């Protein structure tokens, strides 16, 4: 597994890391809860067919303290829009998962020219009182891995400090990722995205881990129904909320099949 190229773009004066790998048409990836403290096999799968471009959202690993400048939902949307533009992703296909999935859907809705085809993996943004999402910010630490992934070890591997990591800053960065998610989605994950889903004209694939313990898989249908463009749902077996960690090959295949 070769290393991706790393560049940096600025949003609101804060640096955001951009990873690039592969060849072919561009595919932007906005990661899910916890962000990407390290490169993951899923991105390699995508890079086999696409130029994968992975900008870090403000506050997530690689995204420094950019979240601290964002007070409102509009602030977030404008920051993500600038991030995509500066990463060279305007007009490209876009994949977003979890918290990143919510922003990917917003981009397609609010800035339709920004997104060609859209792929979403268990996006945040909705809340159904009759089928409530779990509270990812009120968990005992040892419960988090099994909440995020069907195989808890996948989450543990994502957040484990790599050799040579700064033992003080690494855990702070992991908390910061959860804070950045909270800053945009506290307390329910409900950004009233349902009001904007009908604005999405892009062809959309909605993927959901069958064993998602954060967001109920029933939400997939709500997304697909509300989106105006052609939208299809697909369930990933043996996958939790961060399905791309649990089943990198199956998720990548579903995404690449959709993008064509």
């Amino acid at each position, binding site marked *: 597994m070769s290393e991706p190229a790393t560049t940096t773009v600025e949003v609101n004066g804060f640096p955001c890391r951009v990873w690039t790998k592969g060849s072919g048409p561009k595919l932007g990836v906005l990661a899910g809860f916890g962000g990407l403290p390290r490169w993951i096999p899923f991105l390699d799968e995508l890079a086999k067919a696409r130029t994968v471009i992975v900008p870090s959202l403000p506050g997530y690993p690689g995204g420094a303290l950019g979240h601290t400048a964002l007070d409102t939902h509009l602030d977030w949307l404008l920051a993500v829009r600038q991030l995509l533009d500066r990463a060279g992703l305007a007009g490209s296909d876009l994949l977003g998962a979890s918290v990143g999935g919510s922003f990917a859907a917003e981009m397609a809705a609010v800035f339709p020219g920004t997104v060609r085809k859209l792929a979403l993996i268990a996006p945040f943004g909705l809340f159904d009182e009759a089928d409530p999402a779990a509270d990812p*910010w*009120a*968990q005992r630490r040892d*419960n988090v891995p099994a909440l995020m992934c069907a195989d808890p070890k996948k989450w543990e591997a994502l957040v484990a400090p790599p050799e040579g990591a700064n033992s003080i800053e690494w855990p702070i960065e992991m908390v910061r990722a959860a*804070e950045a998610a*909270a800053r945009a989605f*506290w307390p329910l994950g409900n950004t009233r995205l349902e009001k904007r889903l009908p604005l999405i004209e892009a062809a959309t694939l909605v993927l959901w881990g069958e064993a998602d313990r954060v967001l109920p898989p029933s939400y997939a249908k709500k997304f697909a129904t509300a989106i105006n463009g052609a939208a299809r749902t697909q369930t990933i077996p043996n996958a939790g909320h961060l399905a791309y960690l649990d089943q990198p090959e199956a998720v990548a295949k579903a995404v690449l099949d959709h993008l064509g």
Partner: protein
Amino acid sequence: MKLMWFHLMPYTELPDDFNKKHPSVWVDIHSSLFDPRRAHHMYNDFMDELEYAAECDFDAVCVNEHHSNGYGLMPSPNLIASSLARRTTDTALCVMGNSLALYNPPTRVAEEFAMIDCISGGRLIAGFPVGSPMDTCYAYGQNPSLLRERYYEAHDLVKRAWTEKDTFAFSGRFNQQRYVNIWPRPIQSDPHPPIWIPGGGSIETWRWCAEMDYVYCYLSYYGYKAGLATMQGFWKEMEKLGKDRNPYRAGFLQFVGVAESRQQALDLYTEPAEYFYGRCLHVDARFALPPGYTTEATQRAGIEGMMTKAANVANPATKAALKATNMKDIVDGGYVLIGSPDEVIEQIRHVGTSLNVGHLMLLLQYGNMSKDTTKYNTRLFAEKVMPHVKDLFSDWEDKWWPKPMAKGQRAAVPAFRPQTVAAE
């Protein structure tokens, strides 16, 4: 030294098997455990106790704010304080306090505190806590990543609302008001009622208190031994900032149980203390650390171990380490000071001098302590302990104490005599 009488207002009838059957005393404590008809008696007992403490000449009575909490029945301490404003005459009223970021608009706090100050003739101490994670982020749904920024902005707004003479527009990040002009205005207007800040052990809070010239209060339930390092850290920081060691810059909370003898104190206070440390502090760990609540600087300091041990104690994550629930450990740990009056005098003087705190907030009611026992504890402390500790720090001026109207100028509040009404 100022001796202040603090009430948490704990629900006194949590079942014996509470910890086994219920995950948390806070946030999602079950409604079936709350009997409003019993709470009627609890509230009235608690208010009797506060009034009794005022009669016993404590310098202040203190109330505080909690939400969805089985050991704190005061979502609105202002309601209790306004009643106390009428039923006490000279005692300072310490509202410790209103969590500023929870009020929309925050000028509500400026107004209600001004009301209490007016009704009481200028006896208010205005406490401005950020508020615990359980109260603010979970029970009240505030965003932990924005809480402190909202808090500081609300503080600025409240202070301006108290001090600016003309109607003004406030254009903040989170609060926008075209016409800020509170009526009533506080009696204490030179420049405003004393502001006290209850906080954990973060250096940022210490620096802010120093900069604003506010009283810093460390309100831990774990007593003077666990609090020592935090207060030492506070004074070290004051020294660094060029501030004097005036002990009235600080407040500290301490549980006390005094009786004729140590054995009698153990007999009287073991059950309520074990009820408090056992049941009342049974908080689900999942509500301890919403991301963003603890600043990165404080996290960094905690991880680096650069701060002293007690700064970690201020961090809810490590509070779990302090979990003594039996009386021997509770007393050995210094959570509750117990003994005969002489023994308590010695311990209080030690707490005052070792922590250098001029404002000692005493919890003389805790857990399921009955009104009779609470009054006994209160009276014995007032009669046998207070006279022998009040002299501490007499060479320092308390610049952070309320300045009420002169006694002769204050309204005469008719005595409340329910028996007279009954006789009619």
